[in-house]
C-alpha cells in the first residue's frame, strides 16, 4: 500500500466518519419525519370515537376501527396459543436434545428457510391448506393457523438463543443430583430462560399483529358490520383495515387510515415497551 501524507489520511478519516454518521442520520431522520408526517395527517381524524365505531363505505367521519381491533386481538391471541408451545418445544428439542446430529441440522435448516419465505406465500399456503383444504373458510382460526406457520421460526430461534444463554453449570448441577434430562430442562433450564422466552412471545405477537399480506390472501372482510366473535368468525385485522382505506381516493379516508396507524403503532409500541420493562425486571446475570 502506498502511503499518502498523514494530513490526507486524517482528512479521509474525517470524511468517512462524517459519511457513516450521515448514514445513521438518514435512517433516524426518516423515522422521525415519517412519524411526524403520519401524526399530522391523522390529527383531524384522531377522535376517541373511532375506537368504538364500525368501518363504513359512505361516511369517513363516522367510520371506526372497533372490529379491526377486536379481530387483531383474536388473531394474535390464537396465534400465540398455537405458536408458543410449538415453537418453544421445537427450540428446546434443537438446543437440549439434538444438538449436533444430522437430523438436527436438517430441522435447523428448515427453520431458517421458513424464516425467509415471503409472507404473502404463507397466505397462498393458508388459502389452500386451511381455508379450502380443511374447509374452514376465511375465518379467525384459518388466519391464526397461517400466522402460526409464519411466526414459528422466529419463536424457535429466539427460544434457542434464550436457552443457549443458560450456563451449563446449572444443568450439570441438576443432572449430578440425579434429575432426569426432562426434569433438568423443566425445573432449571426453562425457568432460567424465562425472560428470553418472554421476548419470543413479544416478537411473535408483534409480527402476527403487523402482518397484512397473508390475511388479505386468505380473505379478510374489509367492511365488517359486527365484531369478530370467535375462532369461526369472519375477521378483519388492523393492518388490513388500514390497507383498505389507503386504497380510497378522498382525503378523509386517508386521514382515517393515518389515525388508525397512530392507534396501531401505539399498541405495538406499548406492548414492546411493556415487554422490555418486564424483561429488565426478570433478567438475571450469570
Amino acid at each position, binding site marked *: 500500500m502506498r502511503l499518502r501524507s498523514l494530513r490526507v489520511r*486524517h482528512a479521509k*478519516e474525517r470524511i*468517512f466518519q462524517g459519511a*457513516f*454518521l450521515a*448514514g*445513521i442520520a438518514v*435512517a*433516524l431522520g426518516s*423515522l422521525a*419525519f*415519517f412519524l411526524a*408526517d*403520519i401524526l399530522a395527517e391523522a390529527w383531524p381524524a384522531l377522535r376517541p370515537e373511532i375506537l368504538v365505531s364500525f368501518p363504513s363505505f359512505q361516511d369517513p367521519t363516522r367510520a371506526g376501527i372497533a372490529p379491526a381491533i377486536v379481530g387483531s386481538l383474536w388473531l394474535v391471541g390464537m396465534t400465540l396459543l398455537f405458536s408458543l408451545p410449538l*415453537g418453544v*418445544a*421445537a427450540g428446546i*428439542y*434443537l438446543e437440549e436434545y439434538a444438538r449436533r446430529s444430522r437430523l438436527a441440522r*436438517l*430441522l435447523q435448516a*428448515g427453520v*431458517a*428457510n*421458513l424464516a*425467509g*419465505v*415471503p*409472507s*404473502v*406465500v404463507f*397466505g*397462498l*399456503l393458508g*388459502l389452500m*391448506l386451511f381455508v379450502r383444504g380443511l374447509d374452514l373458510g376465511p375465518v379467525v382460526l384459518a388466519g391464526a393457523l397461517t400466522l402460526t406457520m409464519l411466526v*414459528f421460526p422466529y419463536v*424457535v430461534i429466539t427460544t434457542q438463543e434464550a436457552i443457549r444463554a443458560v*450456563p*451449563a453449570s446449572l*444443568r*450439570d448441577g441438576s*443432572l449430578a443430583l440425579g434429575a*432426569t*434430562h*426432562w426434569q433438568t430442562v423443566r425445573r432449571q433450564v426453562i425457568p432460567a430462560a424465562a425472560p428470553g422466552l418472554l421476548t419470543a412471545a413479544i416478537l411473535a405477537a*408483534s409480527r402476527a*399483529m*403487523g402482518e*397484512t*399480506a397473508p390475511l*388479505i*390472501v386468505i380473505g379478510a372482510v374489509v367492511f365488517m358490520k359486527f365484531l369478530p366473535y370467535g375462532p369461526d368468525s369472519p375477521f378483519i385485522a388492523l*393492518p388490513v383495515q*388500514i390497507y383498505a382505506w*389507503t386504497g380510497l381516493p378522498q382525503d378523509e379516508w386517508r386521514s382515517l*387510515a*393515518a389515525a388508525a396507524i397512530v392507534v*396501531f403503532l401505539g399498541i405495538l*409500541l406499548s406492548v414492546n415497551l411493556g415487554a422490555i420493562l418486564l424483561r429488565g425486571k426478570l433478567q438475571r446475570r450469570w
Partner: protein
Amino acid sequence: MAATQTPTLSRMRVPRLLSSLPPGGAWRRGEALIRLALFAAASFAIFATVAIGGVLLFETLGFFQHVSAWNFFTGLSWSPDIEGLFGVVPLVTATLLVAGGSALIGIPIGLAAAVYLREYAPAKVRAIVKPALEVLAGIPTVVYGFFAILTISPILQRWFGADFFNGMNAIIVIGIMIIPLVSSLSEDALTAVPVELRDGALALGATRFEAMSGVVVRAAFSGIVASFILAFSRAIGETMVVAIAAGATPQLTLDPFRSIETMTAFIAIRSTGDLPVGSVLFQSLFAVGFTLFLMTLALNALSSRLMARVREVYA
C-alpha cells in the same frame, strides 16, 4: 460460544446413561415420550416447508396444463384478463427493479450505520441508536406503504413527472425499511472478527478508517455480503409497500417513475377477489408464488452459506 465447546456433562448423551440405571421403566418411557413430543414440534419446520413447496408445486403444475411453462417464463406480456397472456417477465423485472433500487439505497446506508456503530459511536449514542433502529425494523410494512403514497408520491409527481403509483415510491421506502436489517447483520459480521486484527492494524499506524476498511471489513466480507443478499431477498418478498404504492399495471419497463406491478403485488391485489378455484387466473397466483418462493429460497441459501463461512473462520 465458548461454553458450548467445553465438554461438559450435559453434552454427554445423558439420557442414554440414565436409562441404563434403575428405576428404568416408567421413568424411561416418560422421558422418551417427552423427547418424541418435542421432536414432533421441531419437525413442524419441515412439515411447513414441504407443505409450502407441495401446494405451490401442485397448483403450478395445474397451471402449466393451460399455459405452457415456456410461455410463462419467457412471455413478455402479462395480461391475464383480456388477452389471457401469462408471461411472467414483466412481473419479474418489476420485482427486480424495485428490489435492486431499494438495495442501492438501503445497503450503503445500512453498512455505514453498522461501521459507525461498531467503530466510532460512543456508548451513549449506541444506547439510543440501536433501539431506534429496532423501532424502524418493527414498523409494520403497511405503514411504510402508506407513507410512500402520502409523502413520497406527491414529491416525485411534482419533481419528476412520475405517475401517482410508481416504482420509485416503493424503492425509496423499502430502501429505508431494509437499513436496520443490513446494519444489524453487518454489525454481527464485524463483531465476529477478532479485535486483535483491528488492534494490530492500529498499532501499525493505520487510521481507524484504514483499519476498518482495509482489515475488519475485508475479514468480515462474506458476512457483509450475506447481509446484502438477505436484504435483497427481503425486498423481493416485500408485499404491502408495492401493493399500495407501486401500482397494478404490469408493464415491461425499467423506468422507475411509471406504474408497474411486482410479483408480490399481483398476488396480494388479485387474491382479494373471490376467484373461482381451478380457474387459470387462480392457478397463476400459485405459479407466480412458486417463482417467488424459488427466488427467495436460492438467495437465502446462498446468504446462510456465506454467513456460516464467517462463523467457521473466526469461531
